[in-house]
């Protein structure tokens, strides 16, 4: 796959990354050769159905991939240096300081036995050389920045004393307090109520813009991506089938899967009698079809699709991996 060129060198570069799970039936490839770049300060959305490999990709970048999963091919370059080969200890230092992580369920990211302040101070002092008092001051500032009212009082409370939305704000504060240059946000709003989702997304966007942090936003919700991301990578069965600027992918999707996905989203006020649907379901890892994994569900599949995996071809501002576009001029 050709690399998209950026004015300045990419912050993160994922090259031909493959993740497989060792099982007694042999290795199962959950992520299959994905390549993308992330510019500093950019928000990249990764969208796909459950099991498409989007969360695994995020996990691999944060170095939190656990056995029996492993990276079996490719490399991850962060600020020009390979990080997929780092030791657990080196990765731990990088995480938090340079790479922040936000997960779906705010309760699992926070230690229920420590006050919010203790957790913030601990993170700040691990990564920044600050004294106890200075770190606490910084923690209060962080809480204020994420919009928690009366941070001086709330800093000494435990996670369970916060509501769901406030808890996710704390998680964002925790992920951003060491000023990382990359944030991996895995379904950060899925567990929240609809009226709070927008607040959290806006906050995430604002915080990252102000700090110049790049974000990989992993979600199944195209609406979240459309409103938040600069570029979007659409994943299906472990591969990136289409990547490009959000406006482009949303308005004019190329890949038949992206097209089907966009059309199947119900919209308010459409007055449709039926929704467009993609028949079938994403294949299981244990019985992946030959060639393009989408071909059994694809309305435009032809003979070649059953035979070979389509390579990613550059199209306007992005790439699409589909045999339909093989002949198109680059």
């Amino acid at each position, binding site marked *: 796959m050709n690399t998209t060129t950026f004015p300045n060198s990419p912050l993160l570069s994922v090259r031909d990354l493959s993740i497989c799970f060792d099982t007694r039936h042999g290795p199962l490839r959950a992520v299959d050769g994905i390549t993308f770049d992330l510019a500093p300060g950019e928000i990249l959305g990764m969208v796909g*159905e*459950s099991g498409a490999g989007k969360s695994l990709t995020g996990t691999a970048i944060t170095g939190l991939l656990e056995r029996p999963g492993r990276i079996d091919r490719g490399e991850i370059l962060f600020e020009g240096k390979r990080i997929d080969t780092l030791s657990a200890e080196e990765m731990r230092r990088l995480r938090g300081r340079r790479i922040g992580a936000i997960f779906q369920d705010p309760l699992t990211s926070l230690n229920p036995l420590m006050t919010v302040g203790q957790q913030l101070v601990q993170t700040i002092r691990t990564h920044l050389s600050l004294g106890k008092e200075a770190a606490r001051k910084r923690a209060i500032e962080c809480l204020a920045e994420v919009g928690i009212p009366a941070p001086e009082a709330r800093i000494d409370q435990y996670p369970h004393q916060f*509501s*769901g*939305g*406030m808890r996710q704000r704390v998680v964002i504060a925790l992920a951003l307090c060491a000023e990382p240059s990359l944030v991996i946000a895995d379904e950060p709003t899925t567990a929240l*109520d*609809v*009226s*709070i*989702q*927008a*607040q959290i997304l*806006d906050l995430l966007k604002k915080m990252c813009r102000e700090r110049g942090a790049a974000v990989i936003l992993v979600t*199944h*919700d*195209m*609406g*979240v991506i*459309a*409103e*938040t991301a600069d570029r979007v990578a659409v994943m299906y069965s472990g591969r990136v089938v289409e990547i490009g600027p*959000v*406006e482009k992918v*949303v*308005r004019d999707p190329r890949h038949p899967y992206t097209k*089907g*996905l*966009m059309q*199947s*989203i*119900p*919209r*308010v*006020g*459409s007055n*449709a*009698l*039926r*929704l*467009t*649907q*993609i*028949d079938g*379901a*994403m294949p*299981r890892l244990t019985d992946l079809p030959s060639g393009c994994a989408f071909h059994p569900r694809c309305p435009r599949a032809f003979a070649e699709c059953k035979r070979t995996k389509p390579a990613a071809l550059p199209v306007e501002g992005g790439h699409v991996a589909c045999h339909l576009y093989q002949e198109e001029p680059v």
Partner: protein
Amino acid sequence: MSSATDTQPLVSLTGLSKTFDLSPPLLNRLIERKGRRTLRAVDALNIDIPRGKTFSLVGESGCGKSTVAKLVVGLHGATSGSITFDGTDLTRLAAADRGAFRKRIQMIFQDPYASLNPRWRVRDIIAEPLRSFGITSSKQEERAEVGRLLEMVGLSARDGEKFPHEFSGGQRQRISIARAISSKPEFLVCDEPTSALDVSVQSQVLNLMRDLQDELGLTYLFISHDLAVVDFMSDYVGVMYLGRLVEAGPAEQIFAAPEHPYTRLLMDTVPDISLGRRDRAPAIGEVPNPITPPPGCSFNPRCPLATQRCREQSPALAARSSGTVVACHAVTGEPAAGSRPGAGGAAGTGTGTVAQRQPERGVA
């Protein structure tokens, strides 16, 4: 199908309330000197669902919409109010007489992974209602019926031999639907049936549900937090906030011109895919703890239009000329319905679909 006239709604909820007692045990209350703690999950709900239509309840978690679903199917007992199904008040029915109605009211659940017993084969799961209601008389007949139901929901008869874990989420939800329609019910309560599914699969399941509605003449009570899904499915919509209906009416009307500030807030939060990013003022605040709802209108802490009156007086549902009902002082502007005798200004009442009902009923 029934003696009732077509104009009579199939399902009517009148003043339906459910209070959960969250108090600690008596001994702890005495020692810790704490009072009883109760949660009004559903507060005097009035809804009519016409035959063959879909009524959707929308709201955020904790608004009581799932409790309504459980009340209607009889998984919870109502604290007060009535559930009238085809002319019979189910809340007054003896347990023995309820059996006849179970067959006619079924439910589709939210979580396709929890709603099918993992130890049962699919054919047994779908056959359970057939056996329990004595619908099929022989094994062959049962097998044929299970096969027919599986094919009806887009699976094959052979899938009956498999166990639930061999299916994807969308296929499991189809199995759940096959089970729900196996007793040939007239009324299906659907509690967030697609919220656990991926979008491309969600559209399959929603299309299937609409096809079945046309084919079998089903009436749906559809519970969801997703306005786009609700818009696609519904004839009537009721918006709930902290156990109360704040706005209800024909779906087109609600979606075209939402009046209650909370409904408008919900509409604003629907991510807009076609426009890409747009700048909007995100909703403020969060749903308060339902155990200690704010005084007055429970939405007042988040409401941009809140006045002193909203903090003191709970608004009652009032009919609008557009055919909807709205419970909001700022919208109706009329004198508060606190004149309702004995209501203590607490219970907001009104009707869901006002086409068939006098909204003032229960107020005068």
